[in-house]
């Protein structure tokens, strides 16, 4: 059953379809949240919130907005950006987990892994092909929610350099992902 069909069934309040979507995409959502927030507890809350939103608003999804995985990843990222903004306004003590490595998943569920494994590898390859400083700048913007000015301050780099890195890096990534 395709993701679109599953989501249509979620929209009809068929909870088994949500369980199936969880099996397909919870790991991705959790990983995005962990990558952005570096806090396992909050990442778990994000997963719960994303699937609650999918359960309640599945009928709002339309294929023109991209694939189901992209839609769900976008919900997760925006929720994480909200959390990052909240942290900036009310800074918290540094989490112990910020210092500990993320435990990566093994191939313990090959069927699930196969869902987007090829696409993920393609994206990682593309990222690996752009210069490290461009990649780091893009990741600070995308995963940390930083503006170009904030990145310039963080990296102690002129603002114009940051703009150039984002422009060139994104253009190269776009070309690589089109291939």
């Amino acid at each position, binding site marked *: *059953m395709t993701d679109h069909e599953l989501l249509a069934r979620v929209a*009809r*309040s068929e*909870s*088994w379809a*949500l*369980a*199936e979507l*969880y*099996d397909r995409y*919870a*790991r*991705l959502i*959790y*990983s*995005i949240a962990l*990558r952005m927030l570096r806090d*396992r507890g909050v990442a*778990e809350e994000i*997963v*719960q919130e994303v*699937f*609650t939103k*999918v*359960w309640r608003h599945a009928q709002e999804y339309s294929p023109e907005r*991209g694939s189901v*995985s*992209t839609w769900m*990843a*976008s919900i*997760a990222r925006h929720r994480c*950006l909200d959390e990052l903004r909240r942290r900036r306004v009310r800074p918290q003590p540094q989490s112990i987990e910020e210092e500990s490595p993320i*435990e*990566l*998943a*093994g191939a313990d*569920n090959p069927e*699930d*892994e196969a869902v987007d494994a090829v*696409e*993920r590898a393609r*994206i*990682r390859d593309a*990222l690996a092909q752009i210069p490290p400083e461009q990649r780091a700048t*893009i990741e600070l*913007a*995308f995963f940390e929610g*930083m*503006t*170009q*000015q904030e990145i310039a301050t963080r990296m102690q780099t002129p603002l114009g350099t940051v*703009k150039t890195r*984002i*422009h060139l*890096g*994104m*253009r190269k*990534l*776009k070309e690589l*992902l089109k291939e």
Partner: protein
Amino acid sequence: MSVHDEVQDLIPAYVLGALDPPEAARARAHLAGCAECTGVLREYQETADSLALGVPLAKLPPDLKSRTLEKAIGEGQPREEMGLIPTARRAWPHLGGAQLIAGAALVITLLTLAWSVWQSTQFSQQLALQRDFVTVLAYAEGSALSVRGTALAPQAEGKLYVDRDSNVAALITVQLPPLKPGQIYQLWLTQAGGQYKSGGTFTVDSSGDGWLLVRAPSRLGEYARVEITVEPSGGSAAPTTQPLLSAALAGS
């Protein structure tokens, strides 16, 4: 540099959310009326969206699935409105009314009360069944087994949410052929020696969708295969037709 050219330069940073608020507002205003820039935006948006899909995958906490499904599905919704599965009829019979003579009204009232009690019992049983079903579904951590349609029903498929150490499982089927009157679907669990044990019976809706809270006589890990056949209403002691869905349980 024209506003158009300037915004085209801003688009890569815009899709990353990296523009300062005044720059972002300027870009948004131009994008609203420029088809060419909107096309460029779409391309870059796809690129930005891809970044999230490329993150290294982390291990999921083992109990997160049950907590997530409980929160998403269970929060703020009465169970009967979850629509997980066909629920008992909720329409209550209406009383006759003033035009009926008193005796007939009394009879109807009594019949209605009896019907209501019966309905209520059926309804409670159905809800209990649904609750058990959701529980199995929620706690089957990453162990959904694909049940494939055989040559008799190649379009049919199913998922069996199973904990092999227990004797209950949750089965979902889609696109099974519609049943004729007097027929029912029956799930069979086969042991290594070839004996069949019934795991329960179920029907499907007009789309061929069905569900079953499977109850096995013993631990599910003791069975080799699961099969679904069409049987006469009430079920059979052993399969009387060829399976339409089938899957291996052992070693999967």
